[in-house]
């Protein structure tokens, strides 16, 4: 019965525990809608015929509804609507509250691809592997604009927001390959932002994970190529150095202290600069970022306002990498070693 209705209503394969719930309610709602519309429609058609006009100036009886009728008009739809809402809200709460034993997959939307990464190691683009019959929690974010992660076969969808994580979970019931679509308009290739979820039986999934780890271990033979072993900040510094080259920063800014079109990067961080309006400013992360995005805002005395803006040309992480690179060309008064963090006295 349910299968037949699914085909009639063009529903895609239902391949998650949530999909089964959604389909049941869907059939209830659509079924009632059909019966209701047919009821109202047939009653109307009957009356159009039964009460057709016989004389051009025919007068009619004065008919007004009783209070009982109006009460019925209000209460019958209200009862149905609230029942649907009740069931729907219960299921919604269920799907937005991941079970504690769910495995995590990080999902990042980016124009125009989906990136998946697993806490235990492997990551990939546009293909997500998950085991069947095991709850999977998705932690979704975006690197640029809004996206929305949608798997029709699982009936789940959640927006990907930059600078914030959203979550939803599912439990796939059948091994197979399912399509992932982006449903929040995100620019030129919005409709090309496709990916797939590969649902594997539990054992095959374990094998897949092992395979992925083996691949990573082989990589580690070549320690220099394995960036994951280098501390994170150092990695960002390397990225920043490359970016400073490719983005053209080094065409105007030297890194050896010599004067050029722009101030040298060497020892720039934490220095106090005199601006051309006579004020002093301390070069910190905020100032460096601002100078990349709006170079003319606070011009250091003695330099021309010739730098182009990097607004829109640099992603957030790229900006951060360049800042880290500039910080790495530090003067001795920058404290070395890991931060000990602020110290708090416990409240008595």
């Amino acid at each position: 019965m349910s299968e037949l209705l699914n085909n009639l209503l063009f529903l895609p394969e239902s391949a998650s525990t949530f999909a089964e719930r959604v389909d049941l309610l869907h059939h209830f709602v659509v079924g009632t809608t059909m019966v209701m519309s047919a009821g109202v429609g047939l009653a109307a058609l009957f009356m159009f015929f039964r009460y057709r006009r016989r004389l051009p100036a025919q007068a009619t009886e004065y008919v007004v509804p009783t209070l009982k009728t109006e009460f019925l008009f209000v209460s019958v739809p209200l009862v149905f609507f609230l029942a649907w809402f009740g069931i729907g809200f219960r299921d919604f709460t269920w799907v937005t509250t991941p079970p504690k034993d769910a495995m995590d997959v990080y999902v990042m939307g980016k124009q125009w691809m989906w990136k998946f990464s697993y806490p235990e190691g492997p990551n990939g683009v546009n293909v997500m592997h998950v085991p069947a019959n095991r709850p999977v929690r998705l932690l979704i974010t975006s690197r640029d604009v809004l996206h929305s992660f949608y798997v029709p076969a699982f009936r789940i969808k959640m927006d990907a927001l930059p600078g914030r994580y959203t979550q939803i979970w599912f439990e796939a019931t059948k091994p197979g390959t399912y399509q992932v679509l982006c449903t929040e308009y995100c620019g030129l290739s919005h409709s090309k932002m496709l990916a797939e979820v590969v649902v594997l039986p539990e054992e095959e999934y374990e094998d897949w994970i092992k395979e992925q780890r083996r691949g990573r271990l082989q990589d580690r033979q070549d320690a220099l190529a394995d960036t994951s072993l280098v501390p994170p900040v150092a990695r960002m510094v390397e990225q920043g150095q490359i970016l400073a080259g490719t983005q053209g920063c080094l065409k105007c800014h030297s890194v050896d202290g010599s004067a050029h079109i722009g101030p040298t990067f060497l020892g720039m961080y934490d220095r106090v600069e005199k601006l051309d309006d006579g004020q002093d400013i301390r070069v910190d992360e905020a100032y460096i970022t601002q100078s990349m995005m709006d170079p003319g805002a606070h011009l250091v005395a003695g330099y021309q306002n010739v730098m182009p803006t990097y607004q829109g040309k640099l992603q957030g992480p790229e900006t951060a990498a360049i800042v880290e690179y500039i910080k790495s060309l530090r003067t001795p008064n920058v404290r070395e070693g890991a931060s000990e963090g602020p110290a708090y006295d416990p409240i008595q």
Partner: protein
Amino acid sequence: MTPSSSLDTAGAAPHDEHHDHHPSYLVDGTTIKSWLLTVDHKRIGLMFLFWVLLFFLVGGIFALLIRVELLTPGPTIMDAMTYNRTFTLHGLVMIFLFMIPAIPAVFGNFMLPLMLGAKDVAFPRLNLASLYIYLAGAVLALWGMLNGGLDTGWTFYTPYSTHTTTTVAPVLFGAFIIGFSSIATGINFIVTCHTMRAPGITWFKMPLFVWAIYATSCIQVLATPVIGLLLVLVTVENLFSFGMFDPARGGDPVLFQHLFWFYSHPAVYIMVLPAFGVMSEIVSTYSRKNLFGYRAVAYSSLGIAFVGFFAWGHHMFVSGQSTFDAGVFGVLTMLVGVFTAIKVFNWVGTVYKGAVDFKTPFAYFCGFLFFTVFGGMTGIALGTVSLDVAWHDTYFVVAHFHFIMVGATIMAFLAALHYWFPKMFGRTYHEGWGLVSAALIILGFNATFIPQFLLGNNGMPRRYYDYPERFQALNVASTAGATLLAFGFIIIAMYLAYALVYGKAAGKNPWRSKGYEWVSESPPPTHNFVGPQPTFPEEPHFYVDPKKAEVPDAV
């Protein structure tokens, strides 16, 4: 002969002796200046009709381009960027330049003073200004669309709209200006309802169309400033990189959605409430019957206007808002559905023991009933939170809002055009063509959008330039339906244009309606009524047989 007593001498009413001294508003001054600088609400309504129809044509052509593009997966007739701009233009033009002003600015302007026995609206010059403000905004927005083009969709979601390199500022500023036109019209109607009702018209003797326009005006005045503010914020963010909505600068992209839907959800009722009002008039006139539950229909308009303000969050169930929010907005959405259901039941109840004359506007009433029930019920389905998780931003939503917002509004717009055509132009059209084209339009509309419900079920997201192969069959069906729909509109344009010039004289009250607007001549003279201000002793929509009037029997 007082106008109020002339209601029963329907059909070809004899021209009274004043007629020669009081020419109809159409010929009272024939210079271009007398039209462009008129303060007559009827002429302003007619000029709005011209522009609204023109923009409907533009929006419609772009709709067809979209449907042709989607005939096959991959590029069909345009590239992805052009497609993205096309659907943005379609949405913007249809919503801001057609749907929102369509019924209030055209038929509201024309009929409201007539229905209240007033000589004009409360602020005639403001009324003219609202036309020019609307045109100024339209020109600016379209200029922006054609010079650079906008590809954000009509929802302008941030941070895409603050990052995109296409022309955001002029389009948003154009929409901002159009908002002032909407506010001015709303204020004008509210004040007119409060201060200019003829003697005898108490609040609960106002025709239901007036009630609907009144409720709509309240929404316009309260909600439009919010989107005005928002459009300005997005513009400055786009031009000067403010940090309101861009998380890269500490802003909040979801804040935009809250502010946007706080206007744009009630805006749905700005579009559809006037349609409900038109239909209340039409079902009453053509079934020659007092409205079943007049007060319930009047109150439910206010109810929709009120609750409509508290349902905006149902556009954001999967935006990361809290589960509790989703629950609250879900329940409030259901209440809107209940108010609409009251109206539907009362319209059908009106036919009970009536005398139905199946004319063209009534055919549109049938189509309207179907679109409202089906569009409304799918709206309830979307308000059911777990179902919305599956359907959000798919073609199911596209089909739903085209059914309720566009389907119901277009049915009402065409019904109003046919119903009031004799009143506005003093001529009648060919009834046969009217019924044929109505059938074609209703059929075409269903053929276009029912496949889109199924596409949504099947999982096709909206705003897709390209789509996987499995969606094609339904897209072809939808495009075929759109073609049928276009034919329907062409036929209507042809026979109405013909009727405008060669149509038979309509007479004062061709439908033998008891609506207050038919008291005046067709077309009405410049100040609406000849002689003293009319009085309206009877309730509106009162077709009662005098012999049976003493026993107002309950159902």
